[in-house]
């Protein structure tokens, strides 16, 4: 089971963490800045409450299983490190260049 979206169609990125209050809020601040030029909004939520209009879900690898269950039809991009993970640069590049995002 895999979902794909083209980077140029992404309008809303949702970052999910356990409570939707701590680490996801931290990443929201970072990603919102880097994705702003492409007209992409970034939100943060609890992993059990991912909104239906999310185009891409971003979550830590340890929470990926729950994220996929919570948003089965949305690509879920996972990362390991909260700071300086290549997944973030890759996501930004895909949105900038209109490349496919799988997850």
């Amino acid at each position: 089971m895999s979902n794909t979206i083209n980077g140029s169609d992404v309008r809303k990125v949702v970052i999910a963490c356990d409570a939707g209050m701590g680490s996801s809020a931290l990443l929201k601040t970072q990603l919102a800045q880097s994705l702003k030029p492409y007209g992409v909004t970034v939100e943060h939520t609890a992993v059990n409450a991912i909104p239906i209009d999310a185009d891409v879900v971003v979550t830590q690898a340890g929470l990926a299983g729950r994220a996929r269950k919570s948003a089965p039809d949305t690509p879920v991009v996972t990362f390991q490190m909260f700071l300086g993970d290549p997944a973030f640069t890759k996501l930004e590049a895909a949105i900038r260049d209109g490349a496919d995002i799988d997850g």
Partner: protein
Amino acid sequence: MTTTDEPRPAFKERARASIQRFGGYLAAMVMPNIGAFLAFGLITALFIPTGWLPNESMAELVDPLIRFLLPLLIGYTGGTLVHGQRGGVVGSIATMGVIVASDSPMFLGAMVIGPLSALLMKLFDAAVQPKIRAGFEMLVNNFSAGILGGIMALFGLKVVGPVVAAITGGLGTGVAWLVDMRLIPLVSLIIEPAKVLFLNNAINHGVLSPLGVQSAEETGKAITFLFEANPGPGLGILLACWFFGPKISRATAPGAIIIHFFGGIHEIYFPYLLAQPKLILAAIAGGMTGVTVFMLTGAGLVGPASPGSIIAVLAVTPRGGFVPVVAGVIAAATVSFLVASLLLGFGRQARKEEQAKERESAET
């Protein structure tokens, strides 16, 4: 994932996700209300007789805040999670039952009866609402919520309250016994590994906070608030990664230290441990050291520290309790730093790997 037929996740992975989900659910009842917990903690630290500005009339706020406001918020939030506003209302009514049933704060009781009442309301609505005659919706909905809420309040008063009071009493006695027997540092064996599996909120807000509130009411402070929220072990590990970790850790650790220690987002150090699982020993050693110091010095907090930032920890430290709390945090950070540095070979391993990589790239 590029594979088309994904293998079923291993049992361990599924078990972890289920525990996370259940724990996340418990935490989801508490965490949105942390602001109220902090207000309670600050008012307590300021105005109780042993506080900074003892004031009898203002201290009258303390008891109603913890006995009524906080459990009601938890019961309401738990109900809302299950069945929206209607669930929240029924959950709150029912929570009043468990509150009245006991003289001590009924956090666990609220966590049980809030969602349970909302679930019954949801089942009732699903069965009855389609059959209501047009024009009678409001009448039926209001009376069903009122009657079910009333019944659940009585049920809470007579059944859930006494049972949960016995259970929390038993757990509290258990913790007190472990402290008396000097065994309580062993909790770090469970807490530190569980944290790294992203069970930190579940443990702290699902188990430790409700227990702590109980003993904070009796003795003015609770050691259990410090078990998970202590930022010391994570600080030590991040420092070790900064000085002796692999290249990528060295670059990101300073920023992570600030976010962890001052921002209180412990999640930020978990990936460093997941990348090098042996470092979990450093977390456990640091955690046990911290708990030992807290235990020997009689440290405690008046309310839960959330997020687990040094600022939040100090804000709910009782007057005269700073030295024990700070000592425990520093001791935990020192020990986890030393153990982690040792496990990282004081940077030898990272240097070797980098040299190997350089040689590889030079050869190709």
